[in-house]
């Protein structure tokens, strides 16, 4: 049995001024081929000006089962938002 091509995650910058965004994934033998394939698969209609590829195995993802402990603490920290602070109505531009 021959070895299979690994999976790569593809990030594309649609135009300068915007960040690279995750577009999807594909299989390729190495980084260079991943770039070439990403160009053909994800940018056939001028969808991008720059491509990042990273082998999927190098991405560490949070576990949705831990979403409670990870993200809920932020919910009761209303003082991190401007609307928490009482300012007289006459004050403009603040």
């Amino acid at each position, binding site marked *: 049995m*021959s*070895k*299979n*091509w690994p*999976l790569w995650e593809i990030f594309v910058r649609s135009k300068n001024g915007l960040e690279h965004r995750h577009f*999807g*994934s*594909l*299989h390729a*033998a*190495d980084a260079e*081929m991943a770039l070439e394939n990403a160009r*053909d*698969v994800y940018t*056939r*209609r001028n969808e991008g000006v720059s491509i990042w590829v990273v082998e999927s195995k190098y991405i560490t*993802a949070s*576990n*949705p*089962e831990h979403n409670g402990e990870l993200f809920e603490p932020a919910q009761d920290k209303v003082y991190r938002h401007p609307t928490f602070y009482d300012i007289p109505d006459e004050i403009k531009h603040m």
Partner: protein
Amino acid sequence: MSEEKIKSLEKQFEDRILRDEKIEPKDWMPEKYRQTHIRQISQHAHSEIVGMLPEGNWITRAPSLRRKVALLAKVQDEAGHGLYLYSACETLGISREELYEQLHTGKAKYSSIFNYPTITWADMGAIGWLVDGAAIINQVPLCNTSYGPYARAMVRVCKEESFHQRQGYEIMMTLAKGTPEQKDMAQDALNRWWWPSLMMFGPTDAESVHTAQSMKWKLKRKTNDELRQQFIDQTVPQAELIGLTIPDPDLKWNEERQSYDFGEIDWDEFWQVVKGHGPMNKERMNARVSAWENGAWVRDAAIAYAEKQKEYKSKQAI
């Protein structure tokens, strides 16, 4: 996990979908949801890949450079659609190799429409117009389906499909206003592709086994019959406009329903083709499997090269 725990997780899960929340790959999901999605997404991916074969047949014989670049671009898009969908499917924990294996051994199905032959150039017109047209109607609701990676893949697919349909219709239109022979060729293609296109929406609602569950998971928003009716209503005037006749003597505008009534679909033919007895089932699978097998040495060489490069680079670093 206890049965009770699973029940409560399932309830939470169904509620999330009801609230229009998306399900993402690492979220908990019922096993049946995972399996149903693997089946549907992979079938869809296989259809895009096998779907390249009937049109690929005409690339070298396209009648002009304009037609040739368009057909080539369309077929390349279908390859892309297959790839978006395979990767979406892989997020459910099945490997690409398993998916190919299922296709090549006949365990997985693909759309039966691709088991019909493409015998004239007009078939390129009929496929773009009718087959891609029907696919668009099936696919647009999937842009809002509950499984995130599938929905995102479908947004890309749908964006690219509309050129496919327009290029097909343009081919039909051009033939229809050409010589009598060209017009006959267009009519003949319509005659052969019309009924198989109607079958693309699947069995009638009364016969369809998965509809209720699929509606709940937003894999479907309308029933097979509703979508089929929508296709007929939008396509009949398009045929009339270019002077072609839909091959259905029972086709008639129904004033009351504001829709077309249409004739009986030959479901025996449909099931025959699904079961592998269509005119091209064997040939399609042979073409697909031999492309895969004959390409093995290229895949192996690419991996060998990548490994050598890695070795070389790490030696240089020392």
